[in-house]
């Protein structure tokens, strides 16, 4: 089954040989995926920025307990961004 699939990939007219330069279609797909990943990273970053602002406001207002869940959520966002960054590398 695996061999059949790989054969199909090789004979696909839209895709070039994996060992050579990718076709225009593949490059376009990669471009789109890269843009999507970047957009997702930026959204996560904005969420982190909002969490930091809320944590600082809570701390200054005497409600420092807000900062703990904010820090946990920020850490999860950081992990997500790190994972996406790894995918890009």
């Amino acid at each position, binding site marked *: 089954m695996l061999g059949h699939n790989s054969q199909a990939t090789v004979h696909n007219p839209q895709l070039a040989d994996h060992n050579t330069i990718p076709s225009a279609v593949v490059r376009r797909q990669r471009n789109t995926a890269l843009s999507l990943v970047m957009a997702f990273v930026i959204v996560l970053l904005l969420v982190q920025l909002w969490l930091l602002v809320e944590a600082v406001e*809570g701390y*200054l*207002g*005497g409600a*420092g*307990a807000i900062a703990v869940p*904010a820090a946990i959520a*920020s850490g999860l*966002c950081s992990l997500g961004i790190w994972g996406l*960054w790894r995918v890009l590398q």
Partner: protein
Amino acid sequence: MSDSTPHWRKDFPINWEDDHYVTRREFTSFLALISGALFFGTGLVAVRGWWQRWRLASPNSVLIASVAEMPIGVAKLFYYPTPNDPCLLVRLSVDRFVAYSQRCTHLSCPVVYWAADGHIHCPCHEGRFAVEDGRPLAGPPRRPLSRITLMLRGEEIWAMGVEV
């Protein structure tokens, strides 16, 4: 390089446009760094908040004033539980005293007691708090002022703890 290339270009063969070009991967790496910095900042605030709560959890009793030095409708500044925590003591009636943290619950500006209007005022963003219980009345603050637990021991007024 061709012969028409200037001599300085041969010595300094860097194309500024290429040098300043940032790929999306490089930009995403930069964003990942910023993400780490934001997480670090939020964590730092959380640790400081935890430290503050831990400090307030074990307060000691402190003599802050005597009844004789507090006429009705007058406020006195004192520091509790540490010398870095300013508080306001207000005498509302003959036998009623209240005390609050002087930090506004919006952005920590120092609040003042306005005896004429009978409320506590934050001059930074026009916040107002009820002097009876510290609840927010107007302006951006949404949380009541931290209340200081008081105890009368004869003619002495003691601060016993902080209710956040």
